[in-house]
């Protein structure tokens, strides 16, 4: 009898603990929102996952961005899925760019990035744009 009472208490404790952990673990989440697309590229490519359950890990090759590329712009759209149980904010930082003028690249979040509360998957789409220029090589 004492063993059963102890066991039930332990079970409730574990369930409560697990529930709390689950609550904290699901507060924020960012993942792939679908397959990225690229347009206007010459020799470029983009890789990513179409699964919204995958981590956001995208590799973009803009290809030729000299005047040899006669397109008006090279454009990549990276769908992003965000989930949270409380107000969220998406920030971005550029690292690893050497010998590059960051102003030459335009990053836009097509949807609102203002703080808001969302409970379930809420895909957002970012657009990465590079106009072909006669950059010195």
């Amino acid at each position, binding site marked *: 009898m004492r063993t059963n009472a102890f*066991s039930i208490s332990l079970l409730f404790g574990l369930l409560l603990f*697990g529930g709390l952990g*689950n609550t904290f673990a*699901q507060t924020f989440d960012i993942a792939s929102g679908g397959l990225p697309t690229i347009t206007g590229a010459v020799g470029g490519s983009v890789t990513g996952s179409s699964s919204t359950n995958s981590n956001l890990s995208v*590799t973009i090759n803009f290809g030729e961005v000299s005047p040899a590329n006669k397109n008006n712009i090279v454009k990549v759209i990276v769908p992003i899925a965000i989930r949270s149980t409380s107000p969220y904010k998406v920030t971005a930082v550029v690292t690893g760019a050497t010998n590059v003028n960051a102003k*030459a690249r335009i990053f836009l979040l097509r949807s609102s990035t203002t703080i808001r509360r969302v409970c379930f998957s809420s895909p957002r789409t970012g657009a990465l744009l590079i106009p072909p220029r006669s950059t*010195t*090589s």
Partner: protein
Amino acid sequence: MFKLTKFAALAVLLGTFLVADISAQSTSGTVNMSGTVSKFVEINSGGAVSLAGNSGGGITANGSVNNPLAVVVNLGELGPSNTSSFVVADVPLKLRSNAAYVMSMIATVSSSGTTTNKIGASDIGFGLGAVTRTGVGVNSTGTDTNTTANDPTLVANGSINATSGRYEFTATRSNLSAFAASTTALSGSYIMNAVPRSNSNGLNVPAIFAVKPQFYENGTTTIAVTFTVTAP
């Protein structure tokens, strides 16, 4: 004892779920980017051709700024009935590049005559005029090297041969015989700064061709000149 073991196993299982749940969360993602800028050079027409001193003839296919260079000029009469000092065709060129460039030229001259009095390559004066780098987006501080003798009609570039009496373009690379094989006419540093292709500015330079009307052997002459720009 058995029940205790079961609950311990249950605890481990729940713990595993919890760890798995935490590890499934991702609060950051990465987008890695790369691109390529290849060397780029181009030559186009710099505008309309001007023809002066001609008797007959005319511009068959004119130049149109920023369009491919495909000019056809009929120099007209080049015999002594043309009393002009020179027949001069001025062909504007426009070059653009994102790297150091070299513009070379090759020319072929063919006349129907059979004697040394026919028009030859050395009778076609040639030179590049003033080079200008102006306009938004142009590397205005870049430098250029003109290997020709400029305007072939300049007094310093030609004279009458005291022995033969024939007028000759005597300065270095002042006539088309110097370009029987591909030869550098102009070179320089990169022309354009980082601007879109739609920017229409560039380096402008006139290619000047001149013929002194003389008692050449009668017949017809054809002249073909090809400019090529490279980024070595």
